[in-house]
């Protein structure tokens, strides 16, 4: 392999890149002066109790100044290890077996003393992790922590405290904290998740490092906040020339942000390609499979592709394509020798289908569609289903409210305001349909779901389930209701009893409801219904993978054959392929057994792909509701429109740098919703009337799309594309003060 071309970063051809950096007004990466980081034939191995595991297998990469290099792959592909190896922070059982990493101005990092390396960390290379809560000390103010980091480095001691504080405040301002001087004295818990992540970025910037390693830095954030942070990264790159190594599992995000992307599989780089090509023209079968597994505009109404099998544990460098066991194109040649990185257009692909010599062995070039087609074929034909009956919906909510605190609280005058988590939601859902509820965290969607299955008491309104009011059920009726309405919880591990074997847990519902033995299905049967092997029955939850635990959760929810299932973020924390197969499972259950599903998710692409109807929530209220196709094609609320715009789109990739963010700021606290339209502080179309009058939830488009309702004064104008952005928010690319 000859991945490193010294001096010049191996940049792919440029129209897209030039376009992007020109649009952002920054220096073009190629002429900005060489390489920041070079990784040369790096191999990293972990020693485990009885064996060795190869985490990185002969990887060569380079990172130029002002460049954003993405590293993607499923978990276990070695992408996080790469970041840790660069920082020389491998865990004690990890070791660089061969190869080197060199940093501009320092040479081979492996040769530096511990002391020198310490000063490289933070000063030259900074890191941002996924979870800012665990990276910040809760007992120290943000300012104190910023000062501490500066003092920890040798020359920080020379500067006066005042200079250090000034530096810290200026960084806080730079990352867009609304009131940096004020923020300096605040404690981490006083910030929202998005703001805490900004504090972490400010900390990373203190010494103006040459490069920043962002390890899943935006994965825990809502799409809107994620977009803001990505925007911030782009700005930092443009103003400081900082290079980024952006490690992520999310193809969509990577395609929006990165100049160049390295796709890793089983420790090897299998494809290197320009950021925009990730969704548009992926070449390697693995990249294509990942792409086909991620819901996007193209996948609407289709099954998502899944990749069979799992990422292998590599013990030593194998003389074959590591992806061969899971690849739908695999030929004899693939297991006979290891493919190199072959150039193909603007990309380099480690696959024999692109090798000059072996090309003839493959009937056609691999395309993403093949994975989709295979997924469609695996669908099981639907049996006789009950026809939806619009007059007798299975679930009907009228003015549902769930408030916390306030008068009903145990501490009547504790001074805590009422939190209106769900505030007047009305909707109805027919049997055998899937309703997707979308919104940012804090929109009340999970609270709504838990109220529907009666895990939280409704404080107002009614929930009718098959004609009966759930909120007025007696003890016995509730017990019977629990058989018919089930919930799939967000965290698959914590929702399973930790000290009980899977098989036993699946029998629990039968025991609780005293179902006679003859009418029980066997554990094997229940497991196979969710595609789990029978061997899982004797496992404890902690021994399951994320996808398996999720499936056990689904299986348990289905044991009693309920009519309604509320699935709360069923794909959270899963790799693309596992997420896709979980969603396929839910849609199959709907199509085959007529299961009614309420799908709660923050991911609008996922919801538009799978659900029949969409309900967009904001601050405890429904802002738009309707048929999936209608809402997705002609959104009638600015919030829906913004969420749709943030979803990755293979046809128009790389829009982030050129486009202004459609929604600024963060969701306010539900204890004091803004007057008038609750969305107005973040709405780019807001006008005076919006600040005073609450927009009612009314049908849009004059009734040619029945059931499509939206709560916006200007819904019709928005759909017609007649709305002008109001000046007040047009420059709100900077986060609005909260």
């Amino acid at each position: 392999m000859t991945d490193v071309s010294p001096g010049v970063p191996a940049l792919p051809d440029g129209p897209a890149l030039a376009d992007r950096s020109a649009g952002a007004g920054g220096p073009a990466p190629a002429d900005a002066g060489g390489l920041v980081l070079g990784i040369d034939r790096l191999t990293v191995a972990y020693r485990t109790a009885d064996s060795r595991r190869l985490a990185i297998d002969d990887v060569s990469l380079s990172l130029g100044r002002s460049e954003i290099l993405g590293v993607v792959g499923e978990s276990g592909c070695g992408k996080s290890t790469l970041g840790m190896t660069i920082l020389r922070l491998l865990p004690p059982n990890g070791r660089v077996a061969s190869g080197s990493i060199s940093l501009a101005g320092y040479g081979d990092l492996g040769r530096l003393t511990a002391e020198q390396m310490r000063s490289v960390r933070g000063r030259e290379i900074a890191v941002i992790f996924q979870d800012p809560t665990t990276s910040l000390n809760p007992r120290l103010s943000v300012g104190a922590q910023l000062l501490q980091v500066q003092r920890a480095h040798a020359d920080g001691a020379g500067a006066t405290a005042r200079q250090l504080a000034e530096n810290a405040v200026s960084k806080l301002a730079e990352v867009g904290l609304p009131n940096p001087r004020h923020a300096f004295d605040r404690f981490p818990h006083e910030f929202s998740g998005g703001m805490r992540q900004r504090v972490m970025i400010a900390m990373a910037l203190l010494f103006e490092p040459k490069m920043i390693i962002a390890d899943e830095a935006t994965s825990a954030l809502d799409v809107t906040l994620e977009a803001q942070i990505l925007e911030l990264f782009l700005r930092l790159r443009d103003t400081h020339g900082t290079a980024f190594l952006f490690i992520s599992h999310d193809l969509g995000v990577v395609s929006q942000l990165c100049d160049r992307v390295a796709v890793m599989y089983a420790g090897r780089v299998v494809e290197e390609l320009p950021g925009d090509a990730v969704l548009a023209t992926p070449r390697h079968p693995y990249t294509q499979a990942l792409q086909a597994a991620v819901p996007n505009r193209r996948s609407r109404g289709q099954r998502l592709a899944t990749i069979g099998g799992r990422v292998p544990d590599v013990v030593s460098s194998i003389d074959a394509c590591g992806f061969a066991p899971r690849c739908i194109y695999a030929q004899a040649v693939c297991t006979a020798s290891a493919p190199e990185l072959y150039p193909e257009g603007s990309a380099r692909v480690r696959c024999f289908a692109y090798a000059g010599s072996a090309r003839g062995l493959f009937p056609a070039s691999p395309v993403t569609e093949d994975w989709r087609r295979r997924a469609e074929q695996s669908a099981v034909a639907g049996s006789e289903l009950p026809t939806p009956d619009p007059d007798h919906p299975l679930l009907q909510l009228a003015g549902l409210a769930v408030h916390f605190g306030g008068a009903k609280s145990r501490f009547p005058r504790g001074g805590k305001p009422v939190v209106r988590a769900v505030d007047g939601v009305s909707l109805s859902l027919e049997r055998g349909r899937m309703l997707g509820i979308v919104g940012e965290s804090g929109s009340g969607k999970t609270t709504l779901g838990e109220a529907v299955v009666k895990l939280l008491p409704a404080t107002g309104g009614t929930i009718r389930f098959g004609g009966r009011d759930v909120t007025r059920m007696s003890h016995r009726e509730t017990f019977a209701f629990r058989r018919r309405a089930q919930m799939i919880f967000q965290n698959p591990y914590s929702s399973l009893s930790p000290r009980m074997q899977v098989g036993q847990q699946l029998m629990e519902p039968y025991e609780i409801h005293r179902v006679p033995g003859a009418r029980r299905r066997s554990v094997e049967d229940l497991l196979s219904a969710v595609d789990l092997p029978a061997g899982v029955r004797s496992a404890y939850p902690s021994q399951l993978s994320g996808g398996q635990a999720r499936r056990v959760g689904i299986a348990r929810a289905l044991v009693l054959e309920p009519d309604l299932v509320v699935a709360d973020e069923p794909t959270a924390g899963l790799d693309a392929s596992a997420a896709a197969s979980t969603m396929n499972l839910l849609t199959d259950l709907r199509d085959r057994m007529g299961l009614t599903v309420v799908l709660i998710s923050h991911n609008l692409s996922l919801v538009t792909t799978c659900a029949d109807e969409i309900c967009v929530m904001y601050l405890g209220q429904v802002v738009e509701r309707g048929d999936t196709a209608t809402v997705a094609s002609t959104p009638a609320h600015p919030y829906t429109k913004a969420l749709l715009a943030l979803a990755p789109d293979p046809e128009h990739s790389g829009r982030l740098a050129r486009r202004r963010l459609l929604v600024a700021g963060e969701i306010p606290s539900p204890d004091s919703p803004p007057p008038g339209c609750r969305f107005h502080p973040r709405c780019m179309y807001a006008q005076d009337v919006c600040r005073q009058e609450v927009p009612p939830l009314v049908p849009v488009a004059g009734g040619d799309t029945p059931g499509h309702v939206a709560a916006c004064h200007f819904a019709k104008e928005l759909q017609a594309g007649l709305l002008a952005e109001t000046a007040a928010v047009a420059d709100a690319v900077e986060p609005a003060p909260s």
Partner: protein
Amino acid sequence: MSVQATQQVLVGEAGAAPYEPRGMVGFARDVVRRPAGAVAVSLIALLVLAAIFAPLITPYNPDTINVANTLAGPSLRHLLGTDSLGRDNFTRVVFGTRIALEVALPSVLVAFVVGTGLGLAAGYLGGMLDKVLVVVFDSLISFPAVILGLALLSFLGPSVKSVVFVIGLSLMPYYGRLIRAQTLSERKNQYVKAQRSLGASRGRVLRKHILPNVVPPLLVIVSMDIPTAIITEAGLAFLGLGVQPPTPDWGVILDDGFVNIGTSPWEIIGPIVALLIMTTAFTVLGETMRDVLDPRQRLPRRRLFGRKLAALDD
């Protein structure tokens, strides 16, 4: 970069894996598989056997007085010599094991059962009951155990039963508090919610799901408390408030031995060694259980880890 952040990553990837809950049998097996656990368990088994088969181990009766041979030194016939009344010291120590276990095990067991029950109720049911129980636990704890014991024993009169009661009562509130805290944190877990959504009753959730999760950490403490109970028992006997002479009790023997320590130091050796063995065995067992439950808490490992980290940086 932030130190905590990097530590986080390190601990996340390199720290020993948290204990994978398997059933109680699996837990017991994991404990016995460790060398320390195996040694502790065999020592405890030995002590229990000694207590059961005491009459078979020594040819003497612990209470038989032999005025002709008082305060004798060790010999082949009397391994640890004889006491001021000519009773065989070794025999009395062996029989003392019976009393020690007869007091320690029931008292800790009673405290364990009552404490767990009350703690579960307080933590899971909450409300008024919780408030009352917390006050009860706290006021029992705030009494110095010795004072409480002295007062109760002088009221109840010294006997094995009252000693069991006193020791049990002084341990119970600690267990109750621990279980209550554990229950409160378990209750927040989603599996409890999931069980409710399946229609499970409170009792069922408590019994089948919360109980198995809160008990193992308590077992650690219980095991370490058994020696405390034994020493307390011996201490009370030593003070003349517990088991009364001539019962062959370690505390009683010690008391007697100290009186004659000038002429024959042999009498106190037996109970001291026995106490040491018993204390060590139960403490090591407790520590092993803790290690099995949470390998990351082990101190030596942490130091080792720190050193390795430094080595990595070199």
